[in-house]
């Protein structure tokens, strides 16, 4: 079952990357929606494993996504779906299995009929739209996008893991919001990376990061990191301001969103600090 979870994880990420690299509006929309569905499949399987007290992790294989035609990736996604369909035989929850299979049936049909398009997400041009950035600003933006896209993916997985292991409505509401916020940031950064020709799949997360032993420490460190991220956004905004008002405004916007994350994390910290004190 753990391998099934890994396969679902890989399918979700491959499709998410496909949605970043697609330029055609309808292709992008569909791939985005399908990646959301695959993320939910991953979570259903994870919940099933957790409810049965089966050990699992977020380990996975590397996911090759470098293509010059979308159709090549779509074929790869369909192959992955076919393999999961075979692997679903280990799933003894018949309803869960049927739900996933029904989703697959429609998604495969749609993917097979999706119009092809050229992919420029790996051409390493490092140009965002028609904005002329200095070499220094381009390098700063490149590093930021690689660092932060990984960070957002890492946060999605950490909060996801914590959510599965908690049945408290208050804290799960916070985790849900944090996951959605990180999805939005990951999508924004991923699409910028694709536009700049430097798209890459976030690297595998080490289990010590999500199997959090001390949530209070994790949240305290996380708040510090978010403060650091705010500072980075501010620096980046300043660095690109003279070349692009659009980019500067975007990074200011991300900066202000981090304030909301800090507030949510403080609420979670208060909750866990009280919980630890009560125990």
């Amino acid at each position, binding site marked *: 079952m753990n391998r099934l979870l890994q396969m679902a994880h890989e399918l979700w990420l491959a499709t998410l990357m496909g949605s970043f690299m697609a330029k055609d509006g309808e292709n992008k929309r569909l791939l985005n929606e399908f990646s959301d569905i695959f993320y939910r499949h991953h979570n259903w399987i994870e919940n099933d494993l957790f409810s049965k007290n089966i050990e699992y992790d977020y380990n996975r294989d590397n996911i090759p996504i470098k293509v010059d035609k979308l159709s090549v990736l779509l074929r790869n996604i369909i192959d992955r779906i076919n393999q999961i369909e075979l692997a679903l035989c280990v799933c003894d929850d018949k309803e869960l299995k049927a739900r996933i299979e029904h989703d697959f049936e429609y998604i495969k049909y749609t993917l097979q009929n999706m119009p092809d398009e050229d992919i420029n997400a790996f051409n390493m041009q*490092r140009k965002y739209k028609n904005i002329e950035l200095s070499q220094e600003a381009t390098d700063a933006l490149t590093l930021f996008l690689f*660092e932060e896209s990984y960070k957002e993916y890492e946060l999605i997985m950490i909060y996801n893991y914590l959510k599965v292991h908690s049945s408290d409505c208050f804290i799960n509401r916070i985790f849900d919001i944090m996951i959605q916020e990180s999805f939005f940031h990951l999508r924004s950064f991923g699409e910028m990376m694709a536009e700049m020709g430097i798209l890459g799949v976030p690297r595998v997360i*080490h289990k010590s990061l999500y199997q959090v032993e001390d949530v209070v420490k994790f949240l305290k460190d996380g708040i510090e990191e978010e403060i650091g991220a705010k500072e980075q956004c501010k620096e980046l905004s300043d660095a690109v301001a003279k070349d692009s008002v659009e980019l500067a405004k975007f990074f200011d916007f991300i900066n202000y969103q981090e304030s909301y994350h800090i507030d949510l994390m403080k609420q979670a910290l208060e909750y866990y600090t009280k919980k630890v004190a009560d125990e």
Partner: protein
Amino acid sequence: MQFDNEIIEHMANPNNYGSIEEADAIGIGENPQNGEKVIIYLKVSGDNTNPIIEDIKFQAIACMTTVVAGSIITGEAKGIDFDMGEQLISVTLGMLDNVPPEEAACSEMVALALKGAMDNYRLKQEGKESAGVVYKIENSCTISEEELAKIQKEHK
């Protein structure tokens, strides 16, 4: 760090990223100041006097500069024997005087993780129980019972 296409390729698709199930040796390079670490897994073959690094993987709980260093150094280490591995470590550490301190720390962590993995393999060959060897930047340490148990648990 200045970026060319080669560096960006390492960032987007780092070589040898991941872990090896049933690795022959594990080494960890750690920065005690910020908790960042690099874990290197080895699959080893050949005779015990000068074994060969058959396969190598790494994981980084660290910044992108460390990932790039890990990608480059493990790429160099794959397929070489331990003598060459020692030379690779020594050359890497020797080059660090000429790079900014924050970048030096990243490469040092990777080089020390490789050293830790090779030492872990040697300890095992001597019949000593060792789940992994940890080296910290600027000061080395042997692995504690607690850390050893943790690594064993993580590696299961």
